[in-house]
């Protein structure tokens, strides 16, 4: 079963961080990706550009409404994701707990919907 791990963290803190510290975090993420890859769990993953680059689009009455900024303004913004293929929810939680942001931000785990009738 596939699970999407949404990585939420304090964006301001990340931006203020000195490069060497940031590199250390990147190394931790690379380590996580290597481990998840070796275990056959990692399907996909990426870091997202800052929320300042986010644009939200809605269509109402055939009119396109585009606004700058993310869908929700929160302190711990969505900053990246992993798609993990795990045998069970418990395994997905175990892997999510190993994502570096779990230690300071939050990782939301969502199963990718499977159509039971398909």
């Amino acid at each position, binding site marked *: *079963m596939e*699970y999407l791990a949404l990585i939420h963290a304090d964006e301001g803190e990340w931006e203020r961080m000195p490069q060497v510290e940031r590199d250390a975090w990147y190394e931790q993420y690379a380590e996580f990706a290597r481990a998840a890859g070796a275990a056959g769990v990692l399907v996909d993953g990426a870091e997202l550009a800052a929320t300042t680059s986010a644009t939200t689009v809605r269509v109402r009455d055939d009119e396109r409404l585009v606004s700058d900024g993310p869908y929700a303004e929160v302190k711990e913004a969505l900053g990246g994701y992993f798609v993990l293929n*795990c*045998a*069970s*929810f*418990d395994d*997905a*939680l175990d892997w999510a707990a190993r994502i570096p942001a779990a230690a300071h931000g939050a990782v939301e785990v969502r*199963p990718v*919907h499977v159509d*039971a*009738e*398909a």
Partner: protein
Amino acid sequence: MTAPALEAIFREEWPRAVAILARVLGDLALAEDAVQDAFAKALERWPRDGTPRSPGAWIVTTARNRAIDRIRRERTFARKAELLARLEVISTDEDADVSTIPDDRLALVFTCCHPALAVDARIALTLREVGGLATNGIARAFLVAEPTMAQRLVRAKRRLRETGIPFRIPPDEVLPERVADVLRVLYLVFNEGYAATTGDELVRRDLCAEAIRLAKLLCVLLPDEPEALGLLALLLLQDSRRDARIAPDGELVLLADQDRSLWDRDEIGEGLHVLRRAESFRRPGPYQLQAAIAAGHAEGTDLATIAAVYDALVAVDPSPVARLNRAVAIALAGDAETGLALVDELEGLDGYPYRHAARADLLRRLGRAEEAAESYRTALALTDNAPERRFLERRLAELGRSGEHREQPSG
């Protein structure tokens, strides 16, 4: 066969049947529906044809057949074939000895108490799937409308399915914390029946009995877990005081003032026996220590010894509530000053009425009436429970009457 006897068999066999079907089908809702069908059939057949030789095997076999019927009526073929194939592993021998049926009840318990479910959902699911209680009974016990409880159960089962929470006994490395989660759910069930004093007394009594029954089942399923025995001992010892803790006029009676002849001696004996079994493992934990404290009260142990057990409890469970109880025990053992200082040290309990009530009581014992009154008022503002409110109001009124006179400790 009488209706209560039938009911007893149903409650006993329900989790076994639900567990094996849930494991095989990987779907708790479908399993429950099939078992429900089987019980409906038993209710129709057994009084007419007699109780089958092996009621458990009859239920499992019938539920398996009902699951097949239900799946056949489903629309799509792919999943249908797969589920039907899975059901092949269940025996079709309705006379088989129940011990030949794989026992998946422990996996069922862990699944119902999974930490990814909300606590309310864990409690409701455990009572429904492990306890075999009907939805309307659970709703009554928790003072919510039946559709609300039904909705809670449906959502919980949907969450189990959608998140892919595994139906299994957790692996060793997480087992201790998952066992603690299960014990907590059972303790919450008990407390709902014991601490709250609103609602139908009989319903609440039944809920405590159900928590004890489930704790006994857990002790059978986890024979090497002293904390499961510790919880069972604690529940038995607390339950033994049930008739003494509420006066005939509905007022709350504190432990020290209870009429001990109302304590249930048999239940105390059983609790002490279970506690000794737990302690023979020599692996103490919070429930065993709380049971040891309850046992101390039951056996009339001196308060200083009881306070010492609280020290051990705080060492394994340094939560503010445990520390509050220790502070009170020290005060009751004769050192109200130290007890008060410890209560005042606690952080994070400002919204907890018992902290203010305990503080008020200690100040009252120390003759500091005005400060005591203030703490009683704070506790009152935080309490909804009617008998507890009346108790606090009575104490507050007594303070007014006794003025600045120092009251003798009653302890």
